């Protein structure tokens, strides 16, 4: 990777490069993001080695949030490129502002002039899209390339090029080289296999569903109004729900929604009936909701979940894969 010219004395850049794991741990904690060693080391290495970090995991386990945290703790801009099918260079890199160009032509025509082409294709008419914005940023920004598995393979190849040297050429303006390599965060829900090349270029982090312990800490951090008892119940019940044979597991986002819903209902401890009534906060698939209601119909499901649960110990549901159905 070609080292681009760096802005001398940019103090924040020095911060990112000098961040120690200990500093990161504190910064993440202050920001309310609960991160274990795996996450911290991967982020730290990405910063120190100046490589993009590729974060994979199920939806809602906290991938995107990491980019936001980084932007906050380094006090820099978050530039987001949301990927989708059909995303192309003009939406990702730059586009010419045709409306403005037309307007300019019309104005000149009224004055009896014809504009120079070079005038029309100049900075004034350039619409910067996220990639170009990141490349031209004054300060080392966080570039979030979100859900990269959603874009087409051709676009991924283009992205790979850009991430290789952070240099792009705009025919009318020439070659533009990044002042500094942005902090790049790529996320993927793994719906499509990413290319080997892209994977190899990145530091890799896979985020699993959290253990009971971690989820408990997340609930405490994000919903501090919840009592200890409620937070613990929530973490234990969610862990058991994740052991069920579901179409879509509840994610952290849903755990948090559910906790807030329980708080709003003035609940202090969870029971089967409450779980059945609020199941739609936790599960987004109809069949899953029905399955959970059925499980809770016996009246002992939550009790059992709480009995089997020791937040001190990583819960099986978060760690091991379920055995195949008999």
């Amino acid at each position, binding site marked *: 990777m070609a080292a681009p010219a760096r802005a001398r004395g940019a103090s924040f850049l020095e911060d990112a490069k000098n961040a120690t794991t200990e500093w990161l741990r504190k910064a993440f904690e202050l920001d309310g993001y609960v991160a274990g*060693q*795996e996450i*911290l080391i991967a982020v730290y*290495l990405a910063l120190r080695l100046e490589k993009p970090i590729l974060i*994979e995991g199920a939806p809602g386990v906290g991938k995107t949030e990491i980019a936001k945290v980084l932007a906050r703790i380094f006090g820099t801009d978050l530039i987001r490129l949301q990927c989708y099918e059909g995303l192309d260079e003009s939406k990702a890199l730059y586009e010419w502002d045709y409306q403005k160009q037309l307007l300019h032509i019309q104005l000149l025509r009224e004055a009896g002039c014809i504009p120079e082409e070079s005038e029309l294709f100049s900075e004034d008419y350039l619409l910067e899209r996220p990639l170009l914005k990141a490349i031209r940023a004054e300060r080392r920004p966080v570039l979030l390339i979100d859900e990269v598995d959603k874009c087409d393979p051709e676009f991924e190849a283009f992205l790979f090029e850009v991430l290789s040297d952070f240099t792009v050429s705009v025919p009318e303006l020439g070659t533009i080289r990044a002042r500094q390599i942005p902090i790049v965060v790529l996320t993927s829900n*793994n719906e499509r296999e990413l290319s080997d090349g892209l994977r*190899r270029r990145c530091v*890799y982090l*896979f985020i699993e569903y959290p253990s009971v312990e971690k989820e408990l800490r997340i609930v405490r951090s994000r919903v501090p109004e919840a009592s200890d008892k409620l937070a613990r119940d929530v973490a234990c019940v969610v862990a058991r729900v994740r052991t069920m044979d579901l179409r879509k597991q509840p994610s952290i986002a849903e755990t948090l929604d559910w906790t807030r819903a329980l708080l709003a209902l003035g609940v202090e401890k969870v029971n089967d009936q409450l779980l059945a009534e609020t199941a739609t906060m936790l599960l987004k698939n109809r069949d899953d909701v029905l399955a959970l209601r059925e499980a809770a119909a016996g009246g002992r499901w939550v009790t059992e979940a709480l009995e089997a649960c020791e937040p001190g110990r990583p819960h099986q549901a978060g760690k091991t894969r379920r055995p195949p*159905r008999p």
Partner: protein
Amino acid sequence: MSAGRSVDDGGPDLALQLQENLVRFVHVLRHLGVPVNPAETVDGLAALELVDLGSRGEVRAALRATLVKTEGHAPLFDKAFDLFFARPEERQARTAERLQARDARRARLEAANAELAFQGEPLELTPEQIETYTRLGEVQQERLRDFLSETSAGYGVDGKLQALVESIVRGYLDRLRREMGVEANRPHARTGDDDLDTVVEGTVDAVVGSEADPMIHRDMKDIAEADLPRATILIRRLARRLATRLSRRYRETHKRSRPNMRRTIRSNIRHGGVLFDLRYRERKITRPKLLLICDVSGSMARYTAFILEFIFGLRAAVSGVEAFVFSEQLERITGLVAPGVAARAQDLAKLVDKSKVWGRGTDLGASLETLFEKHENLLSRDTVAIIVSDTKTLGADQADDLLRKMKPRVKEILWLNTLPREDWPSHRTVGLFARHSDMRECYTLAHLEQVIRVGVGRHMRAT
């Protein structure tokens, strides 16, 4: 020499040792099927310089982040890391254990070889041949011993006869070995270094049957009979994960429905053109039907058994599965495909034996002809036809015609070709059939998962 130094026992030349260790560790990973390239190895080294080498957790996380880029490989990495960077005592104990096991095996084979003697002299057999003998049933073993003692006692016995008997026994054992489908050895388990082999084998033992099982990269026809249960567990896991993934994809596409602008504007006229109430287009979700047409002649039977098992595990994610097998002729087996197909490949063979098409010459042309004659109603635009075949068939030109006819009648023809891609150019039929189908290389479970994920997944969209 040891597999790897324990990372927490420090030392002045730690850096050098780490470098050397890392290269050895990467060697282990590669043998486990984790593809680490030189650039990544360099990243791993750079990472080690940045973390606290006294902390096992940091070292593990650093190597994992730089060397392992696929979630599925993580269990392999973790196990290998534990074994490789174990404390010296543990490591030595394990290597000793392994060598002991190897000696025990050698002794067992020698004992077996003694049973296979001609006139009191053990026959000259390879370890594989003797191993095959030990795997035989009691009756077969006895028959072989009887054969040897009878010929030993025969009249006018001489050296020529000994050579003849030896070659008969060898040929017999080799044939059985092929029939049992036993692989020559475990190809992933030979680094040529005892300590590394211990790590590789220990890791493989620990992940057997899970998604990290290196079996996923093995040619399906080379998976031993004895490993079928393990393969079945693996196939079901893969199918299950893919089924979930496909359903997820279909849900998420659903979510991104676009507003119907005409209806929206009409319903918002009273707000003076301010869009309060977005109206969404009703989007219809179609999940494809699958029409499987699988070659079961000769060596294709094994592939087909595995593929049927896999597709069966996906049935919840698609809107229906129709299955046919063919060799000389076509046979509908839709109602007969059930879980356990792969593990009961024998039963399946019998079952299809009854239907008289199993394991004979292959005629795709005649088989497709029958499909058109008797089951034309199954061809529809919401169906993905999946053909499992190495393209070696009689009636290729007829098949070519019928495929051309079939193509516009279905959504797509996906061809799972069990020949390695490098062999494709030497078969005329590959080029012929690839004109009508999306042909993919498919001889490992990893291929299968990938091809179906992409090939079927792309038809799981909102229309």
